[in-house]
């Protein structure tokens, strides 16, 4: 039934960005040995590589390769861009963060690159095997990145937790895949879709179990409740740049997979899983927003906030429509800018030996660093979804998609929860602007972080007031998916 696996140049061309990244990763490992002591070399190389990849992604043509296992289409391309944008930010932030947190390992960049490779593979995965492989490539790299600070207890713990739970999730995912394989007779998503179309899923418990377990695994990766509990701990323990990275790029890649599996594979039984996704989305938003209220560490708060945002992004998947998919993509793209911006501020504020990750450290920031505070204010309002920031555009597109798909009740709950979220985002603003300063904050601005901040600011404002292009691109990328 499966067509022969053909290995051809066309397929390779499709996978050019991935191939390029692998090469880059290897090169980076070597460069560490070849040119020791060149502090700026690795980041520069990485940045160049990522930008090149970005160019390759944008320039590449659409198509299906590797015997239908690897697909480059609007969705893939869009998510790849999001992942790469997230990585660009990460590289920019890493400069300072590494100095601050005392990371001197050359493998940092290569691991980052391998992780990104995994993500790009995930975005293009049209077969469950590829999904699994991409996922593992990404996850394994990130486990390492999280635990890269070998002597930091918190990083150790974070890596351990992430690893154990990630491994568990992979196993569950894999078992789910195996069940789906058995019942659909194939691992190709398009073929799966064709197989199960017209079947009464409700009468096939094993298929349901397969779908359920798949969903569990993917939900773990995106960090949806109740599979979210690794997120806060890992985000807090990981080096801040990696936290920022994790909150954007892997999440986007996992969403790519989630979207493709649910929409390309299981759309025919949308009504079966939609209710699950609705429940998960609601629970995720609730848990994320509510628990974030009582956080005292900004990193942890942002971790819970990222959980909440996953809940919003799930609304697009829930809708199960072209519009929903575009909305999710749209949202994740915007989220990359605002969240990276927020993390950039967090990174900038940290000093050697002083993490300054407590919310209290933000008291009176507006007095000592007005620019930084203003930017943080912008990002916080954007995360809340207040216009004219980009966050509003993202949220609006999601709400619109969900309403149009008929999930008005869920949307009402979502907006109420986003009002809850306003409280903790505003708390940061309140501390910065309305409280007395808690000691002077000498902030040494590095070029990388400055560029990151500028980029984030331009993105948040620009996408807020002129979102037309992004919205068009996202909706074009979503074409053909319902």
């Amino acid at each position, binding site marked *: 039934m499966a067509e022969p696996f053909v290995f051809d140049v066309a397929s390779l061309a499709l996978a050019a960005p991935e191939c390029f990244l692998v090469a880059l990763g290897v090169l980076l490992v070597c460069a560490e040995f070849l040119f020791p002591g060149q502090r700026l070399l690795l980041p520069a190389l990485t940045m160049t590589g990522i930008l090149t990849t970005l160019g390759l992604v944008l320039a590449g043509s659409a198509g299906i390769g590797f015997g239908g296992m690897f697909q480059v289409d609007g969705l893939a391309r869009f998510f790849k861009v999001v992942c790469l944008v997230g990585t660009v930010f990460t590289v920019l932030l890493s400069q300072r963060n590494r100095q601050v947190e005392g990371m001197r390992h050359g493998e940092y960049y290569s691991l980052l690159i391998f992780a990104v490779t995994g993500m790009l593979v995930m975005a293009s995965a049209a077969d469950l095997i590829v999904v699994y492989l991409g996922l593992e490539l990404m996850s394994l790299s990130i486990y390492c990145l999280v635990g890269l600070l070998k002597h930091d207890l918190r990083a150790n713990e974070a890596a*351990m*937790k992430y690893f*154990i*739970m990630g491994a*568990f*999730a992979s196993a*569950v995912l894999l078992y789910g895949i195996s069940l789906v394989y058995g019942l659909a007779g194939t691992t190709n998503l398009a073929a799966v879709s064709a197989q199960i179309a017209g079947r009464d899923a409700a009468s096939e*418990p094993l298929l*349901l*179990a397969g*779908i*359920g*377990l798949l*969903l*569990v695994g993917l939900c*773990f990766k995106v960090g949806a*409740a*109740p*599979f979210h*509990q*690794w997120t*806060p*701990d890992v985000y807090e323990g990981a080096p801040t740049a990696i936290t920022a990275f994790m909150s954007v790029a892997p999440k986007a890649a996992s969403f790519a997979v989630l979207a493709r599996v649910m929409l390309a594979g299981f759309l025919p039984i949308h009504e*079966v*899983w939609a*209710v*699950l996704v609705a*429940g*998960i989305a609601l629970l995720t938003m609730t*848990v994320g927003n*509510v*628990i*974030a*209220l*009582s*956080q005292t560490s900004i990193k942890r708060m942002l971790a819970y906030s990222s959980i909440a945002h996953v809940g919003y992004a799930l609304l697009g998947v829930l809708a199960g429509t072209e519009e929903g998919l575009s909305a999710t993509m749209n949202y994740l793209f915007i989220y990359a800018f605002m969240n990276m911006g927020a993390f950039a501020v967090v990174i900038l504020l940290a000093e050697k030996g002083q993490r300054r990750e407590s919310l209290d450290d933000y008291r009176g920031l507006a007095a000592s660093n007005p620019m930084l505070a203003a930017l943080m204010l912008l990002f916080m309002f954007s995360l809340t979804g207040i216009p004219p920031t980009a966050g509003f555009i993202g949220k609006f597109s999601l709400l619109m998609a969900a309403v149009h798909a008929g999930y008005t009740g869920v949307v009402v709950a979502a907006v109420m929860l986003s009002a*809850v979220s306003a*409280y903790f985002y505003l708390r940061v603003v309140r501390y910065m602007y309305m409280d007395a300063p808690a000691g002077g904050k000498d902030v040494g601005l590095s070029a990388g972080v400055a560029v990151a901040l500028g980029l984030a600011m331009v993105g948040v404002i620009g996408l807020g007031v002129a979102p037309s292009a992004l919205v068009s691109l996202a909706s074009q990328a979503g074409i053909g998916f319902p």
Partner: protein
Amino acid sequence: MPLYLVLLPLAPLLSFLLTLLSGKWMGSRAHRLPILAASISLGCALAAGWDVAHGVVTDADFYTWITAGDLQVSFGFLVDQLTAAMLIVVTSISLLVHIYSVGYMQGDPSYPRFFAYLSLFTFSMLMLVLGNNFLQLFFGWEAVGLSSYLLIGFWHQKKSAADAGKKAFIVNRFGDFGLSLGIMLVFVTFGTLHYQEVFQAAPGIVGQQFTLLGLTFELPTLIALLLFCGAVGKSAMIPLHVWLPDAMEGPTPVSALIHAATMVTAGVFLVARCNPLFELSSVALNVITVVGAVTCLFAATIALVQTDIKRVVAYSTVSQLSYMFVACGVGAYSAGIFHLFTHAYFKALLFLGCGSVIHAMGGEQDVRSMGGLKKYLPITYWTFLLASLSISGAPGLAGFFSKDEILLMAYTTNIGSGRFAWFIGLVVAFITAFYSFRLFFLTFHGRFRGSTEQRDHLHESPPVMTVPLILLAVGAVTAGWLGSPEILGGHSMWDHFMAPVLGRAEAHVPHFTEWLLMGISVFAGLSGIWLAYHLYVRRPELPGQLRESFSETYRWLVNKYYVDEFYVAVLVQPAINCSRYVLSAFADATLIEGVVNGVPRLIGRASGRLRRLQSGHVQHYLAAMASGAVGLLVWLYLV
């Protein structure tokens, strides 16, 4: 529109603005402009009266005030016989009070402000009487209320004065509440607020009904009663009379002008002006008659025992206003306005006389500290005597003619409560004479009961004050002659003059009955004077004994039947308590804020709880994931 009509209200308005702005600079010369303005107004009023007497009735719009949908209201002037009479009363007394105040208010630090307010009042009152539509009436109505508020509280550093001003305004608002609803009902009924149009269409609404708050009324009755609410407030009828006695906190010239001669009579003016509407409802007329009669007796009895010289006169004012309402209630609008006219002069005279006494006594107002002032204040004494005689209905003086006509009309009317009103009126005529002369004797006869410093201070007022007294005394004597009835050889000129506006209520009784009634009322008045003389001049020890033997009645009277206390207990205090405890503390702070703050607090608490689920134990997380997965599968199967 004749120029003088524009000038009539404009002069005092400009005077108000200019005096207010230039007050600091003008200082003790601040009275010049207002007096000039008042004189101009008087001149214009006389011109208007002249025109009206020659049959020229003006009804013209000045400019359009409010346009909204089918509502179109203008500022405009209607000058007919009624207006002309009011204009002359208002401007003449206003001018005299202005002049009087130059002496009375001399040396007051806020001298310019006082005159500015007087001008404001004159302007407002003129706007009230000149208006050719209900809304302008309301404009003037509220504006005189404002002037009254400002002038009562003129000495605002005194808490009692500030309280009294506020009370006057708020109590009046209760009346305005009805009045404004009445005006709206007029608009809804007739589609216009213009007097002439409304009055022309008025007969057409007989028999129509209107449902308000679930109660169905005859439309004319409802309109009339709502309008009358306003009159009750402004003219201090029961149950809204409580503000007027307190209003005596204001400077005495103010009491004379506003709280005796002009503003408080606006209620009578309103009823008279709207007589085509009131005529349509016998229910309303009966209500007016009864309210008038009851207030009449009520106020007169309180006046019996008051010891504050101004308060006695104030209650007497309430009582006399009630006469006017009785007149209107029995359909004798012309008689009511006639009494308004005569009363303006003798009551203003009484007040200004009081002012002169107070001035001489250095601010003392308690009659128990006076006595024997006759020799110190001769002019005041004689003018005061004339005023007292006039109010007591001594034959030939102003009060005699007007009061007598009212009693006659009440007796002969076909309004059901007419006889009742007549009887009360007669009793009150007796009481009025009694308390007026009680006051007179206590003040001017006997021996001086004040301190020696006060005695040394005693002096007759300067001419700037006494000349107005004398002029008013002339009015108090002669004003009545205009309405001298035919049986006394007069021609009822007043009634003839007013007939085009107010209609003519003829008393169809034999001359004998008319004579008899007149005799009875004169007798009542004279016996009142005699009794006062007996009790306070011949047997000064008697009043004390009477007080002893009727102590319970005395207590009720001297406390004004506890009406103020009653209102505080059932209206003011409950409202404050409701505000503080029910609304502020309970509904707002507990109920609504409870939800508003409670939901976030609940979420916050939930956050604290949920947060602990994140225990840090990886096993717990795994368990949560596993149970989540199981839950997911179970749900999948169940759904």
